[in-house]
């Protein structure tokens, strides 16, 4: 009881202190030093209509590369910690016919929608991460509906690796063509789609990178689900 009271008091003090700091940050005022530049130049410099994806993939693409790596580490870490020589799904209760049939029917639709999200990253809200997560949801649905369903492991791992290498390769091509790592060569050197802003074939390398990220995130999250659902079998 005393412990809890002390904890509450401590949290209140920290909360008050944080609120003090926050109250001095000007909200709603024009404090956009860098932000304004992005808004004013995003279309001509990157060809993306969606300013968020332009910032995330193009201006600050280095951060996104890092985030993709973080996700990769998470799935590798889970894989390393749950590794056993032989593992199998041990689920017992079968789903009802309505559930299994429904899932089978839904699966392609979810996949399609996920791909739609990451392909249109430069035009509509979303991008590689939500698109990839949606695709992983489709696989989760299959895992939940069927007791024996399993993704093809080797294929998924290799795809994940190739997707990650693809991202770095796009960056290295930028280094070779434009002189900078992660340089948008499609837009700034080749000028592909410059007359096409706002349509599908525009946005420089943003759609390319988002497709790669979408595939990578989709396979990674599915891999995590797969790893966590399987249990060791003793012989």
């Amino acid at each position, binding site marked *: 009881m005393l412990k809890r009271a002390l904890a509450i008091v401590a949290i209140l003090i920290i909360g008050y202190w944080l609120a003090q700091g926050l109250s001095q940050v000007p909200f709603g005022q024009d404090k956009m030093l860098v932000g304004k530049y992005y808004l004013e130049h995003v279309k001509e410099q990157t060809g993306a209509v969606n300013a968020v994806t332009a910032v995330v993939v193009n201006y600050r693409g280095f951060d996104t590369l890092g985030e993709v790596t973080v996700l990769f580490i998470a799935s590798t870490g889970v894989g*390393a910690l749950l590794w056993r020589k032989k593992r199998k799904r041990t689920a017992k209760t079968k789903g009802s016919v309505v559930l299994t049939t429904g899932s089978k029917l839904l699966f392609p639709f979810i996949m399609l929608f996920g791909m739609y999200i990451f392909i249109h990253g430069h035009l509509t809200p979303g991008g590689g991460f939500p698109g990839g997560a949606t695709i992983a949801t489709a696989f989760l649905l299959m895992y939940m509906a069927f007791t024996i369903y399993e993704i093809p492991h080797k294929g998924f791992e290799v795809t994940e690796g190739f997707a990650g290498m693809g991202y770095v390769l796009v960056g290295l091509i*930028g280094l070779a063509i434009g002189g900078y790592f992660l340089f948008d060569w499609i837009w700034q050197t080749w000028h592909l789609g410059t007359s096409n802003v706002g349509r599908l074939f525009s946005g420089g390398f943003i759609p390319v990178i988002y497709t790669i990220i979408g595939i990578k995130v989709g396979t990674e999250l599915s891999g995590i689900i797969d790893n966590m659902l399987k249990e060791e079998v003793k012989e």
Partner: protein
Amino acid sequence: MNQVASLLIALPLISAFFVPVLKQINKSLIKPYLVLITLIQTGIAGWVFKEVYTTGKPIIIYAGGWRPPIGINLYIGHFAALFVLIIALVSFIMAIFSLKAVTTEPIDKYAMLFLLLMLGATGMIATGDIFNLFVFMEITAITAYALTAYNKTGEAAEASMKYIVLGGIGSSFFLVGVALLYGATGTLNMAQLAELANSINPIVAQVGLALIMFGLAVEAELFPLNAWAPDAYQAAPHPITAMFSAFVVKAGIYALARLLYLLQKASGWSSLLRLLVIMATLTVVFAELSALRQKDVKRMIAYSSIGQIGLIALAFSLGTQAGVDAGVFHMVNHAIVKALLFLAIGYVGLTVGGTTMENFEGLGKRMPLTALAITVAGVATVGVPLFNVFWSKLKIILATLQAGFFWAAVLVLFASVVEAVYYFRLIHRMWFMGGGTRIKEGAIAGILIILVAIIIIIGVDPAPVWNIVVKAGSDIFNVANYVKNVPLMGVGA
């Protein structure tokens, strides 16, 4: 041409992503592949080091070709060039050690995590953007969590759990601090933050800075937030422990120092320094006293390592040029000594089976070269003249006295005496107790001897290294120069 230095980041990444493909081709190639990649990385780092120190100008990498603060820039100045080289070298040595030391499956995942740990630390040291620092810190921390638990024993899982919870809280505080600073200034670039530092509202600056310090202190193992460290050091695979001690912590402590000195114009800065001095001194005292009672040698060295880190933190938080130089010097020395010590102890643990005190009895007769290496490293850590750590400890204590913290210097000296007690106890056990027959020492002994030679060379003639270190130190301390070197676009200002 200089932009090629971005390979320091790109190479470990693309090679880590290639491992799953390599695994399908031939699994036995993975460990040699790890050695090869770290060797190439060492080569690139060596080139960057040479480039920076001969031209005297930092290499600025523009990711995506955008000038800061629009894009993210990497700043490889004197400090970063030196430390990226150390990171690559230690990783290379540990990759060789991993050939023998790590036999637990799955080896492909180990290789990926190993490369990404190296990448994360390199990025933390090199980045010039505060949010990018957070991303690289996450990469380093999450690989560290996974690698701590890699051995899959009960205690490894527990150690990793503690680390995850503390690290998670720490990094979320760091993120809140970054958000506050961004809210107050409108920029994330470190150079521009330094320019705008004195215009930040005092309360925001205080809260934001304190949150960032708190977040980084978890990674940097400062006193109240370092409870995870000894467990994690003990439970992690041997090469990984050496990497933690040699550069992962240092990346955290460097980030702390870098941000601290960048924002030195912000109000409330000096009180923060005072707090850090207290935390650092307590870290030294508590760690050394805890090491005194340990029965496991690896754990004992882990506590000793935390104590040394506290000493570096103390040097950095003095707020003077002399202190920063001494801190960087100690970072370099400690990286060499602790890499050697954890390598040797890991090697003993591997051959004898376990790292408890009893296993070290009579080691002088069974594995003389390894015992010699442990002895030299132990004596060096205590700070005996003619060994490298003596010079850096001396400089730190002199700097502390100059800055007027008499009590801190006394407490740190006292801790050094404690340190001497447990190191000499270990050395006594190795050479004058027990016995046994000779065990054949393999190629690792060669690496140990090279490291011992480096320790003694620096100890006898510290001048060349000291010259490098002074340049690296002014890279951190001389903020005006840092800001001048980063070509900021005139956005908003």
